[in-house]
């Protein structure tokens, strides 16, 4: 297991508030742009999708791939970041 990225640590460290979707680990400018196009402009909207899929890793990763074409690492980073955030703050 590789160590977590700086972005992951920053996101997990505090409530997400009104952070943009690009604050999520694994979501850069390109994927963030695609997500924003589809209405997922804030991190909490993605969190909503994550929760509505019952925090299921497979389903969420599938969704992320379909929605913005994230690769496996990006999917994993984004899932891990949301999962840990939920463990800490939900």
């Amino acid at each position, binding site marked *: *297991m*590789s*160590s*977590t990225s700086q972005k*992951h640590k920053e996101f997990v460290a505090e409530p997400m508030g009104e952070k943009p979707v690009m604050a999520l680990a694994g979501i850069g400018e390109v994927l963030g742009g695609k997500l924003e196009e589809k209405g997922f402009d804030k991190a909490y909207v993605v969190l909503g*999708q994550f929760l*509505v*899929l*019952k925090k*299921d*890793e*497979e*389903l969420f990763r*599938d*969704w992320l791939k*379909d929605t913005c074409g994230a690769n496996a690492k990006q999917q994993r980073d984004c899932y*891990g970041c949301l*999962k*840990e955030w939920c*463990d800490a703050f939900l």
Partner: protein
Amino acid sequence: MPFVEDPACLSKSRLKSDLVAHNVELPPAGSKKEAYVALHLRHVDQTNAADFSSDDDQEHNVAGGDPEGAKELDPSALTDKDLKALLFKYGVKAGPILASTRAVYEKKLRKLLQSAGEGESNEADNAVLYSDSDEEDVSEKDEEKELEGEQEKKSEALELNQQQCNEDPVKDILKDLLPDTKTSPTGIYATPRRPIKGAAQQPIQYAYPDTPVSPTTLERQEVARRLAPVYVQVLVFFAVMCILFFIFVNVENTNSVVSLLERQNQRPDGEEGIPALDETQDAACGEL
């Protein structure tokens, strides 16, 4: 096709474009509309008819093709409720099926349908394995059998071998302690040997190896693995403290020993000094 167009009603340019679209050679530029209409009737409408027939054939193929395909429903054609019910049938507890989640669940169901064709028998076995009611029934039956067996044993108490003699008192004690063991859902009985066996054979179901662990906890676990266990740490701590204490005490002792030795050394000097004085006094007296 929503409606059939009469080629005669179409404009010349429309006819032209239609013919071009159907790869029909256009008549010479100066020809009249009738020529176009005739060509249109001959080629375009025929191809349309052919399209229709081929559509029909396809539909027939789909409908009457393979019965399994017809049985396996297309997930995208299901209602939300049916989709959820089907997912539940395959052991997936689906969340709310919304516009944003439906696609994901359809994909999941498609995957499940594919894998179901390969291992349907396995699933049936699993259903039997994991159903609670069956297990309870089985355990209850076992208990009944056991009770009967026990009664028989008691009736044949004289013929019991030593092992059974050892078993019975234990059983009674356990029953006294735990009078409600009959209804225990874990299937642990008040016999001396069975629970041990069962506990050893049954896998612990409280461990979920697949649960995703966050990287920080993994790091923590790695660090913990390298550290010595707590009791070893405590032991080492006490050992070090004992050594330090002994050293401290010994240092004090040596100090006191040294001082004692010094005192002893001083004392003989003093004793020697006093006789010397006496001698001098004697000498002085002698002189006097």
